[in-house]
């Protein structure tokens, strides 16, 4: 099972991804019904599923999260973000950087403050970029060494750009720094 890193620490994962894609949960079975969701569990639903059975999912006792694929537009969940306890963004391949933009949009444009999780091909050497883009939890690919992965967060002590970890770009902070020193 993938190790979860949350807030720069190894964490216990309470979440369950609804496996089998949206189709599995939208297909009517032999009994003429779609499959039930576990009432108490914390479930992550693909966006397509959430669109159709959202009310049912969100009405359960357990918490609900959504899984966004790289080409899913975060605008689609802007209206229900306050009801979601987790947004997971999938990186199908570490070199596919669309998820970074998705994260920034969620944080900066849509004001999402809940858990934002990177899932998929999540590797140590991209973690810092992910964190700066707004992710705060990381479901590491199975082969990743969690201890080494956490070290990645400390590799750089400064950044030039405005980002999720530094809402002001360095050039706006340099003066306050100089003013303090001077």
């Amino acid at each position, binding site marked *: 099972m993938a190790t979860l890193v949350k807030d720069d620490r190894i964490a216990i994962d309470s979440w369950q991804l609804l496996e089998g894609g949206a189709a599995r949960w939208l297909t009517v079975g032999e009994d003429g019904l779609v499959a039930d969701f576990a009432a108490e569990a914390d479930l992550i639903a693909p966006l397509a599923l959430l669109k159709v059975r959202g009310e049912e999912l969100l009405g359960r006792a357990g918490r609900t999260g959504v899984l966004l694929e790289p080409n899913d537009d975060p605008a689609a969940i802007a209206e229900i973000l306050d009801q979601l306890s987790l947004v997971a963004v999938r990186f199908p391949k570490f070199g596919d950087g669309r998820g*970074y*933009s998705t994260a920034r949009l969620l944080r900066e444009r849509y004001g999402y403050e809940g858990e934002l999780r990177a899932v998929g091909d999540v590797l140590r050497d991209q973690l810092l970029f992910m964190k700066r*883009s707004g992710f705060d939890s990381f479901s590491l690919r199975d082969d990743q060494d969690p201890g080494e992965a956490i070290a990645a967060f400390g590799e750089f002590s400064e950044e*030039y750009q405005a980002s999720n970890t530094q809402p002001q770009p360095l050039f706006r902070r340099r003066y306050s720094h100089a003013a303090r020193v001077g």
Partner: protein
Amino acid sequence: MYQYDEIDQRIVDERVAQFRDQTRRFLAGKLQEDEFRALRLRNGLYIQRHAPMLRIAIPYGILSSRQLRKLASIARTYDRGYGHFSTRQNLQLNWPRLEDVPEILAELATVQMHAIQTSGNCVRNITTDHFAGVAPDEIVDSLVWSEILRQWSTFHPEFTYLPRKFKIAISGSPADRAATGVHDIGLMALRNDAGEIGFRVLVGGGLGRTPIVGHVIREFLPWRHLLTYIEAILRVYNRYGRRDNLQKARIKILVKERGPEAFRDEVDAEWAHLENGPATLTEQEVARVAERFTRPPYETLSDEPVQIKGTGPGFGAWLKRNVHPHRVPGYAAVTLSLKKTGVPPGDLTDAQMDAVADLADRYSFGELRVTHEQNLVLADVRQRDLHEFWIEAKGVGLATPNVGLLTNIIACPGGDFCSLANARSIPIAEAIQRRFDDLDYVFDIGELDLNISGCMNACGHHHVGHIGILGVDKNGEEWYQVEIGGSQTRVPGAPAALGRVIGPSFSAEEVPAAIERLIEVYLERRDSDAERFIDVVHRIGVAPFKERVYGNPGERRQNRDRQLAAA
């Protein structure tokens, strides 16, 4: 040049430590080949035909003599005593050992240098006019803006895994010496009617497999909005640029597929959210960056005609070709040509690097620039020192008076070094230089850009050469396609132009003769010495050139007889 502050230095030092650890993990088998590949490319490290190749960043082409001496020492210690200046104003080492690269980077960091983002699908080295800061015609000093963009693009978290590489060029003057029309983003400084500084923004230009001249998507972007607007462009590209096909992943394809107007509308919609955000530039920041640039303490001199009489042969030609105007009276900018016949274009030995560093110290305030034509410029030489300077430059083989002429060939490393190449570039360049070894003849031909690329990737910028040569592979053999009519534009107002292929390709042996026939047509058809090769191509079209080069056998014989009769 820009002087790092404590934070700039710390970021580069931390990068060295990070890459050292990445290399260690790779060598220990903890990082897979393709994962390390993405990481090493972001540090300019390729695995090439013979050995790794390390591309060292020379941000916007500026070097101090101290940095150049460090490069010489690295070339001597870790490589085979030479380096290759590329068309992106960077320096490439062709023979470093993978294990040594962290140490090379550590040495570079001691002189405020690095190899950050010199490859990989991220924002690459910002390129600009090699006369920035000294050109009489400039509106802004583009060095300051280039450094602002360098800092913004360094480890930008959102844009480090783009669909493909991303190149930004900026020109501070209307004579576009930075080829902004053939970059992913091109920025041209200008003033509006109210006298305010801003930039014209071009998007989607590029060479490579699908050469396209960029589209203007904003006529005047006030300078404060430079970063937020570029972020809007990059976000649209990052989200929607094609990732299914490497050949179609550059932003130019997205702009083409959507149409420039629709693309612009998308950027504007994105920018509506980012405009006036935290990345909006301040006067204070522009002033801070400008102040961190050391400026030459110019003497108060006046422009005086340089004495040519009694200087011996060659000085006049060199003055005419390699010396350029300067905004400060009494000074001149000088090009050291790295295009001597028999030397691969852009190559410089460690001893020459040391010699150039000495020249820079003694004649040009210890600074120099790398041009995208693969030459070096000493930008602040006193006019009265030019003759003495020329003698010294000649002594180290860097005074070939061919800037802007046919033998000032731009060429990529080609099949001799590069694993992407279809054909070799360097021997073709040399064969052409040998064919045109009569300097008076080359002078008579006048301004002519001849560019050679060893493959579609067009690192040698063949599409924008007045004559462009592209190496192609036919059943495992090297062939060369010839284009004419391209132009990177160094004339105000003229857009970049892409060349047209004249016909079937040539074997390596046939290339010099084909070029010679093109030149014959030009010399016969030009209306005066002032009409350049490129002007004639644009006036009379490709057909007369094509006829002469390919002709029919009968005509070809007649031509030869005529030439023999004339000889």
